C-alpha cells in the first residue's frame, strides 16, 4: 500500500484504490481538520451555515468538508469579526474541514460588475452601495481570516459560453493572479491554496493553463470555468483533458458539479472533489433526490403517498416521515425544507460512498452500469454525452 504523498505542509493524499479500467480513484485526503475520503461531494453552506440544518446534523450525516463563500462572508459579517471568533470554524462551530472559494464566481453571477482589470475585480456592494475592489491579495487576506482548510485562488472568471480573446486574456490573468495569491498566503502551513485551471472550452488554452499552473507549487488543483451552461459534449472533454495532465498525487476538484450523473461520469474521468448548490437548493424548492431522478413532493400527486421518499434510504427523514406528510408540511412549514435538505445531503453523500466502495472493491464498472440503468429507464434514454464520456475511459454500458 502506497504511503501518502505530501502535497503541501497542510495536505497529503493517499491513493487507496484505482479502477483498472477508467481513471476513477478512491483516495484519503489528510487536511488540518481531519481526513476526508474521496471521491467526495461537498455541500455548500454559503453564509456560514448549511441552510436550515445544524452543524451537528451535518456532521451526523457523515459530512467531513463543506463550503463557505468568501464573497458573502467577506461582506457580512466581515473578516475582522470572523477572525475574532476564531475563524469560520469557530464562528459557525464546525470542527470538520472547510473550503472557501475566492469570491470570484459571485463576481460574475451575482454582482453589478463595474470592471475587471489586472488589479482585481471592482464591484458595487449590494448592501451599502459602496465600491469595492477585490484583488488576489484581498481575497487571500479574507480567506486567511476565515481560516479555511482549502482556499481557492482568485481567478478571472468568464462565462463558459463565451468565446474570443477575452477567454484567453482571463486564462493568462488567472495564472498571474495565482502567483499573487501564492505570495499573499500568510498561512501556508495551515491553509491549502488550490489553483483553478481556466481556458474556457478551448483545448489549447486549457493545455497551456495546465502547463503553467502545474509549475507552481500548490497542494491541489481545481477545474474551473465549467458548469455554466456549456454543452455537455464540451464539458466532459475539458474535464478529461485536465485529469490526463494533472498530477496523480494531488487532489482534483471539479467546481460546481453536483447532479448525480455528472458526478459518476466525472469520477470515472478522474476527479476527486465536487461541490454544488443544487441538492440543497432543490430541497428548499420541494424536490427530493432519489436514485431514479427526483420527486417534487410539493406536487399534488404525493398528497396521499404514504411511502418514505426512498425505501432504501436510511437518512433521518426517510426513517420517520412519508412523502404525504412532507407534502402537507411543505405548504407552510420551514421544517419541510429542513427535512428535504437532510435527505438530499444524505443522498449525495451516500452516492459518493457507494461510488467509493465500488472503486475500492474493484467493481466500479458494474456500479456505473447499475447506476445508469436505475437513473434512466431504458438505454435509449442514456444521455449521449455520458455514454461517450464513459466509453472514452473504457466504461461501456450495454
Amino acid at each position, binding site marked *: 500500500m502506497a504511503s501518502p504523498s505530501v502535497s503541501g505542509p497542510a495536505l497529503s493524499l493517499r491513493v487507496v484504490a484505482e479502477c483498472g479500467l477508467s481513471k476513477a480513484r478512491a483516495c484519503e485526503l489528510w487536511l488540518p481538520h481531519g481526513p476526508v475520503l474521496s471521491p467526495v461531494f461537498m455541500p455548500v453552506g454559503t*453564509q456560514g451555515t448549511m*441552510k436550515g440544518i445544524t452543524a451537528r*446534523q451535518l456532521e451526523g450525516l457523515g459530512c467531513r468538508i463543506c463550503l463557505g463563500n468568501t464573497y458573502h462572508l467577506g461582506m457580512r459579517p466581515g473578516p475582522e469579526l470572523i477572525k475574532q*471568533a476564531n475563524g469560520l470554524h469557530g464562528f459557525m462551530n464546525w470542527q470538520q474541514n472547510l473550503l472557501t472559494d475566492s469570491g470570484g464566481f459571485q463576481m460574475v453571477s451575482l454582482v453589478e460588475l463595474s470592471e475587471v482589470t489586472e488589479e482585481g475585480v471592482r464591484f458595487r456592494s449590494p448592501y451599502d452601495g459602496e465600491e469595492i475592489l477585490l484583488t488576489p491579495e484581498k481575497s487571500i487576506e479574507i480567506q486567511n481570516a476565515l481560516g479555511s482548510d482549502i482556499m481557492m485562488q482568485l481567478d478571472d472568471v468568464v462565462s463558459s459560453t463565451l468565446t474570443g480573446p477575452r477567454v484567453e486574456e482571463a486564462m493568462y490573468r488567472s495564472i498571474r493572479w495565482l502567483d499573487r495569491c501564492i505570495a499573499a498566503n500568510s498561512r501556508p502551513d495551515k491553509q491549502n491554496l488550490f489553483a483553478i485551471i481556466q481556458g474556457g472550452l478551448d483545448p489549447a488554452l486549457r493545455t497551456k493553463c495546465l502547463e503553467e499552473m502545474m509549475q507552481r507549487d500548490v497542494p491541489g488543483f481545481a477545474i474551473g470555468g465549467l458548469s455554466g451552461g456549456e454543452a455537455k459534449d464540451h464539458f466532459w472533454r475539458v474535464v478529461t483533458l485536465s485529469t490526463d495532465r494533472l498530477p496523480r498525487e494531488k487532489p482534483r476538484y471539479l467546481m460546481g458539479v453536483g447532479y448525480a450523473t455528472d458526478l459518476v461520469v466525472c469520477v470515472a474521468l478522474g476527479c476527486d472533489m465536487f461541490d454544488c448548490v443544487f441538492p440543497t437548493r432543490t430541497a428548499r424548492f420541494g424536490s427530493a433526490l432519489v436514485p431514479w431522478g427526483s420527486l417534487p413532493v410539493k406536487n399534488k400527486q404525493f398528497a396521499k403517498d404514504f411511502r418514505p421518499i426512498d425505501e432504501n434510504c436510511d437518512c433521518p*427523514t426517510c426513517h420517520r416521515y412519508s412523502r404525504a406528510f412532507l407534502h402537507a408540511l411543505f405548504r*407552510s412549514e*420551514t421544517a419541510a425544507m429542513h427535512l428535504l435538505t437532510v435527505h438530499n445531503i444524505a443522498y449525495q453523500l451516500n452516492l459518493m460512498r457507494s461510488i467509493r466502495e465500488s472503486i475500492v472493491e474493484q467493481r466500479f464498472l458494474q456500479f456505473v452500469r447499475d447506476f445508469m440503468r436505475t437513473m434512466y429507464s431504458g438505454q435509449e434514454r442514456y444521455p449521449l454525452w455520458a455514454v461517450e464520456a464513459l466509453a472514452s475511459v473504457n466504461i461501456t454500458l450495454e
Partner: protein
Amino acid sequence: NRVKILVSGCRLGTLTNLGKNGVQTMELPGCLLYTKTGSPPHLTHDTLQAIEGVPAVVQLTLSTLVELHEVLEEYKAGIGKFIGMPESVLYCSLHDSSTPCPPGYNSNKTVSIWGYGGRMEMTASKFMSMQRALQPDWLQCLSDGDTISGETSRKRAKKSVDRSLSFLDECLQLQEKSPELQGSMMVGVIEGGDVLEERLRSARETAKRPVGGFLLDGFQGQAMAKETKLKLMASVTAELPEDKPRLIHGIGKPDEVLECIERGVDVFESFFPYQVTERGCALSFSYDYNPDPEAAVLEQNGIQDAGKNGIEKDINETSKADPEITSFEIFLKEKRYRDDFGPLVHGCTCYCCQNHSRAYVHHLLVTNELLASVLLMMHNFQHYFSFFHSIRDALRDDRLDQLKELIFRQAL
C-alpha cells in the same frame, strides 16, 4: 391522576395513564409542545430530540390540520403516526393561538375554523368525522369561544355557553358511536365571556358531562380587564372537580402563567416561545429563585438587556424590534450583539447556547438564514420548558412567592 392542592389555589401533581399505551405521564403545572401542521415550528425530529424537557403531550391544532381530512381518512392510522410522533400523547385544539380568528362567524350549529385554504364551517358531525381520522388522545370539544373581540353582550355570552353545551352533548353522543375514538378523552370547554353567571353555569353544566378535562376558553386577548379575567378564572376552577386537568389557551407570558396557576389552571400552550422566535428574539428571563449569592448570573443575562430597555436607536438598524417584544426576551438583531461571543443566556444548557454565540445568531438573523429560527426555537422551547420545571420545583419547595417576585420584577 394524582393532583394535590397547595396553598393559594395552586395545584401540583401528575396526570398518569396517558397515551395509546396508557404509560405516559404529565407533570402539572405544565405546558404542551406547540406544533403547526403536526410539526414543532422549524424543527425536525433530530433537532427536537436535542431539546431538554420536551413535554409529554403534544398540541395539534385543527386549523392547521383540517385540509388533511381526506388524506387522513385514507391513511387510517391516525395523526400521530402520520406526523412521525407515534409515541406521543396528542391533544387537538380547535384554533392556533398564534393566529387570532376573525370574530362573528359562529352560528348555533357551526363553528368556523381558519385553515390554510380559508374558512371552514364545522358542524358537530363534520368535526367528529375529522377527529375520527385524527384519533387524538385528548380533544377540545367543538365550542363557541367568540367572546374575545371587544365588548361582548350578556346575550352573546349566554349563547357561547348554550352552543358549547349543545356541541358537547352532540359530540359525546357521536364519540360513543365511534370505535376510533374510544380511547380519546373529551375536553369540555367552559365559555361565558366576562359574565360571572354564565361562567358558573358553563362550569357546572360542563362538569356534569363525562369529560376528562376542562378548557377555560375566552380568556385570551385583551378584551377583558385583567382583574375581571383573574376573578372569573378563580370562580370557574372552584366549580371544577379536583382530579381533572384544567387547560387554558392563549396565555403564554411568564407572569400571566403564574397568575393562572394561582387560580387553579394546570396546562398551558407553548406558542409563546414560538412567537418570540418569530420576532428574532431569545427568551432570557431568569426563573432561578435560588440564585447563587454572587447573583452575577442575573446581571450577566442583563435584566437591563431585556425588552424595551436599552434598545439602541441606530440609524443603520435595518429592522426594528417587533412592538410585541416583551421584557422577558432579548432582540438579537441589535447591533450590540454583533460581536458578543457569549451564549444567548449564560448558564443555559440548550444546544444553541452550548454550541453557538449571540454573534453567530445575530449574523444568521442579519443574513436572513433559516438556521436562525432553528436555533432560536431550540433555545426558546428549552428555556420555556425549564421555566415550567422551576414552577413545579418552587411549588414543591414552597418557594412560589420567591419565583413570583423574581418573575414579576422582570415583567416591567
